[in-house]
């Protein structure tokens, strides 16, 4: 650590004050104002109106559907993400870099494309469209399509938060456990999992937040059937386009709260684990 001797490389206090002011101004305009706008618009016509918009039948159906989609998606990506992190961090095999690239790929694909690919496979004119129609199975414009698109979009979250930590911790502990006769599952439960639990929880939270808030991908596969295939973000869009602004912002405020809780939980988990977990979406 450098001593406090008025170093020559330090910026003038006035310059720093200007930078701080500018940074706070940027943060205010780009981060605080949009968030404030959601809550102010939601409460513009009073709390009762906002609450009515949330407990209204179609809104409740949207909330239920969102919870169901997340409840299916998150466990799937939890299992897949942990398996991927384990394979990449603890084992050796050819093609590892390709696999890592593949796991991160959904982050660089447009959400609309994430929905599109499943329409190409399961849609009426898709590869399996005729086959599914003959058997009266609905994938697109139904729950399975919503889940598939959401799994695609949230695919990298768990793997990406856990993998770097597992790699950093090396393999000595697992190798010792294996040498002492532990099975793979015993090693995972007793050795690896305790070491990565906070990062894992953080990855699950991020995955969940994105699953509940995803818009573009589910918009393509949903069909926007009110009360049936509308998730919360899609319900926000419908209300907004019908000029029911108070209702749209009320449901949006609920989603914003989810985001805020996720952010707070993530920073608490980072403090618990003593390291930042890569949160890029």
């Amino acid at each position, binding site marked *: 650590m450098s001593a406090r001797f008025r170093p020559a490389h330090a910026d003038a206090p006035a310059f720093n004050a200007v930078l701080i002011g500018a940074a706070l101004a940027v943060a205010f305009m780009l981060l605080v104002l949009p968030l404030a706008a959601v809550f102010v618009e939601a409460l513009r016509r009073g709390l009762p109106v906002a609450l009515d918009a949330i407990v209204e039948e179609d809104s409740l159906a949207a909330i239920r559907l969102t919870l169901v989609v997340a409840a299916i998606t998150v466990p799937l990506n939890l299992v897949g993400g942990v398996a*991927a992190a384990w394979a990449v961090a603890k084992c050796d095999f050819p093609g590892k870099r390709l696999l890592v690239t593949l796991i991160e790929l959904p982050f660089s694909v447009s959400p609309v494309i994430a929905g599109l690919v499943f329409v190409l496979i399961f849609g009426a004119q898709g590869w399996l469209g005729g086959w599914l129609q003959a058997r009266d199975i609905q994938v697109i414009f139904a729950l399975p399509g919503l889940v598939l698109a959401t799994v695609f979009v949230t695919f990298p979250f768990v793997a990406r938060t856990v993998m770097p930590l597992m790699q950093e911790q090396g393999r000595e502990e697992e190798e010792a456990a*294996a040498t002492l006769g532990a099975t793979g599952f015993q090693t995972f439960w007793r050795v690896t999992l305790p070491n990565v639990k906070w990062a894992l929880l953080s990855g699950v939270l991020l995955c969940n937040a994105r699953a509940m808030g995803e818009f573009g991908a589910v918009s393509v596969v949903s069909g926007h059937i009110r009360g049936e295939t509308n998730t919360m973000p899609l319900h926000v869009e419908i209300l907004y386009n019908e000029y029911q602004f108070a209702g749209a912002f009320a449901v949006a405020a609920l989603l914003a709260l989810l985001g805020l809780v996720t952010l707070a939980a993530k920073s608490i988990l980072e403090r618990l684990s003593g390291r930042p977990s890569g949160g890029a979406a």
Partner: protein
Amino acid sequence: MSATLIHARPARVAPVPGLGLSLGVTIAWAGLIVVIPLAALAIKPWELGVAGVLASLADPRVVSALSVSFGAALAAALVALPLGLLLAWAIVRLEFPGRRVLDGAIDLPFALPTAVAGIALTALLAPNGWLGAPLMAAFGWQIAYTQAGIVAALVFVGLPFIVRTVEPVLRDMGRDAEEAAATLGATRPQALARVVLPALAPSLLTGFGLAFARGVGEYGSVIFIAGNMPMQTEIAPLLIVIRLEQFDYAGAAAVGLAMLLLSFAILLGLNLLQRALRRGRR
């Protein structure tokens, strides 16, 4: 001969078990969710034939939508770059009350669902909004429902990518090099321009690429503020949605594939540029 002994691995360390199961799950999971669907995207357009794909992409509306998406993403990443650097600098180097809150708030655009961001930014920037009204009164600028609105939404979405890629590099960099530069007689602006900025350049480039890639494909935060006028403020992802609604699957896939290939080509270019930068510094 002792050298070989030092380098030899301890005699019998059992390999970590579970490769077969974990790799099997991973490959099945990645194959079903990512590889097969993206293969569908790569194959579907060619149902139109090569000429058909080219004709489908040469549609002026497609060309316009692609250039709006890529142009706005580029402009937004360029705007977000200095803003992100400023925020990263403030978080790492400056002491002020509320620094930790600011640090946490940076991730807000990651955590806020895109549709929520979209209607919030529209409410702010609409001609009668909190920011839109003064801008309109003072300068006659309309932001919402123009290309500027698209850029504004993409700056919001892209900002954390730049902050979060620059921040760790800035933190690890320490101040030794700057101190050395100052000791050797460099003025402060010289030290910033010749020592600090070059050291941050690769991470700035990475952040730029991430923000750009995200911006190209962004949908939820843009469609509310864009106005969605064909040939003017219609983005490529929206055109995909429109073609799907017309059951033009192959045409939609053609636009999607073009988007993906273009953005991968640009990211590859940025990657090469970054390598050149890194090599230049050694």
